[in-house]
């Protein structure tokens, strides 16, 4: 009998994908009885669209901020948990909790903390004369969103690094110690290379995540100021569900998929080269 996973994939992946590809070549808004095939018009419009180009560059800007912070942060967390004499499980769960938190709820809390009349900003104004427009600055707004995402995912990625750390054989450290590799040397030349599978997984997950950011910019900034936090998902949502340009929105989604695939491919190649240099195949 046909594999259940095959049936599942056909129903929930293949059919919607084929339908999406078809829709991207139409001007249908999903509610009109008639529509037209428009060929490549949607794709051409997307390539020349200011907001789509903004989403393209903003994603890489988020990547530059988020990926190093989350990798460094989750690795540090994993090292801390790994070094604990007991209650590792408890701390692992504790650090994992932000991953389970609602993105909307955390964004609303952050909005309150950074609001003009919050205790934080009132303190800065009265104590230092500093009036910081956190979410109105095209530099600070994306940084805050990147930090929020890092907070959310750090615990989850720390678990991946933790399992990597736990799987490094003790004999390797003993051998390295005999050769004089201690402290930072041990970390850089033994631990980090041995964590290659974890680095690979975390980096690919983190990069892929950047193409799916929606909740935080939607709640906090609406994509502004001046498109500085405008993401692919926001653009797709605006086009498909607010302006009812479902065909055009689908074309943007397909472009997003292609860009995501290409970006992950590039990262994969770089990571594989690095892994190969340290004996991983």
């Amino acid at each position, binding site marked *: *009998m*046909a*594999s259940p996973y*095959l*049936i599942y994939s*056909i*129903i929930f992946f293949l*059919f919607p994908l084929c339908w999406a590809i078809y829709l991207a070549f139409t001007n249908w*808004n*999903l*509610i*009109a*009885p008639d529509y037209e095939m428009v060929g490549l018009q949607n794709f051409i419009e997307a390539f020349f669209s200011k907001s789509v180009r903004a989403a393209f560059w903003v994603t890489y800007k988020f990547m530059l901020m988020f990926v190093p912070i989350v990798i460094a942060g989750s690795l540090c967390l994993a090292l801390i948990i790994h070094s604990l004499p007991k209650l590792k499980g408890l701390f692992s769960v504790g650090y994992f909790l932000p991953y389970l938190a609602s993105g909307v709820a955390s964004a609303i809390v952050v*909005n*309150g903390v*950074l*609001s*003009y*009349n*919050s205790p934080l900003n009132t303190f800065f104004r009265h104590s230092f004369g500093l009036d910081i*427009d956190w*979410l*109105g600055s095209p530099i600070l707004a994306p940084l805050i969103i990147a930090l929020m995402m890092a907070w959310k995912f750090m615990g989850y990625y720390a678990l991946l690094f933790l399992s990597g750390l736990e799987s490094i054989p003790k004999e390797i450290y003993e051998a390295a110690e005999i050769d004089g590799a201690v402290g930072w040397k041990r970390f850089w030349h033994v631990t980090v290379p041995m964590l290659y599978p974890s680095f690979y997984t975390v980096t690919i997950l983190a990069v892929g995540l950047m193409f799916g950011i929606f909740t935080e910019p939607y709640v906090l*900034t*609406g994509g*502004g*100021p001046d498109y500085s936090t405008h993401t692919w998902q926001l653009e797709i*949502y605006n086009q*498909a*569900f*607010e*302006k*009812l340009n*479902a065909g055009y929105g689908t074309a943007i989604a397909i472009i997003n998929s292609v860009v995501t695939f290409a970006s992950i491919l590039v990262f994969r190649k770089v990571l594989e080269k690095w892994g190969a240099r340290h004996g991983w195949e």
Partner: protein
Amino acid sequence: MKKKGFTKLIAALLVVALIGTGCQGQNEGKNAKGDGANNVVEIDFWAAPNPTQQSFWKKMADGYMKEHKNVKIKVSPMPESPSSEAGIQSAIASGHAPVISENISRGFAAQLAASHAIVPLDEFKGFAELISKRQMKETISGWKFADNHQYVLPIYSNAMLFAWRMDVLKELGYDAPPKTYSEVIELGKKLKKKYPDKFLWARADLVKPTWWARWFDFFMLYNAASNGNNFIKGNKFVADDEAGVKTLQFFSDLSKNDLLLTREATDPFENATAIMVDLGPWTFPYWAEKFPEMEFKQNYVLSLPPVPDDVDPNNVKTFADTKGLVIYASATKEQQQAAFDFIKWVYSDANNDLAWFKQTNLPPARDDLSTNEAFASYLAENPQLKQYAENIPNAIPPMDNEKTVEIQELIGKEALNPVVKGQKTADKAWEDMKKAINGVLK
């Protein structure tokens, strides 16, 4: 092995096709129920995703079905993920649209009407009688679409007003809110002199292109300045240029005098960080719970929007935050008529509007809300709602164009946002906005 794999694929496709055929069969069965199985007409009524509104419509449906055994009304909340409009869009696309739904804005109705997804209500027998019985001739006049049809029956109308911190105004020597632009600026200057850390109006949306935010800032003031002149009619930009430029100039003057707080702030009006706010009646239950010290005519008062100095400040227009009922074209004629008869029954009795008012705090869209005896005692108990009731006929509903979202986004991007940020003059902003909107309307 290859043959086995191919066989498995065919088997999988067959299973999927069978499931799909079964579902389609069910759909046809569902739609056919309205065509007279046992002469009972079944109607799906989608209420807003709001417990008070759902409760109201369930009660109305139960009452109607008691008197009309040949109609079965199923009230359910409309899907709201990612938005109620998207939920309706998906339902229409998948062939599962209800017969009738509420919570439809004029702008969304324009998109639905342009796609022939909803039917004109004025073509139903008894429409004129419904309008007359519910006393809404003046209110509904602003709802007519460019093709001269009425597609939406407004249920409620929040005539948007400005609230003012009267306690702070008194400290500045005022016993009533200002009515003209100059008076507002003068008040603002006095405010800044006495309280440099306070602002006139705290509204972060003024620097964001969020399309629906324009209803509660730009359109409140534009409707007042232009005496309710249309912004778009059909597919044509017909806005009053002079009024529009004056409106933008007012925003510019507010910004230049540091009277606007364009950052997110928590409850700025309630905390007196700002002394003016655009206010709808949905705020009062929130205040009752979180800010019980907010007392009408003690520390806040309500007023219509200010106007340019050369405009009469009496009988001013404002924006109507209003939504209503539509009937979907995908329903059978029998279902459509049954749905219309249901709403005609609901609105034939003012007590039903009173029940709605009490349950939802949303003023029913009637011309006589402030004068009809049925509502007198409720308004006496809630005096802050009386001004909203009185101004329903003065409130202008949103534009009826299928490009509402694009147009209002452009008002923000090309005009309001750059004017408030000091990047454009009012004249240039208006011209840029007009050019961009005409480009969209082509």
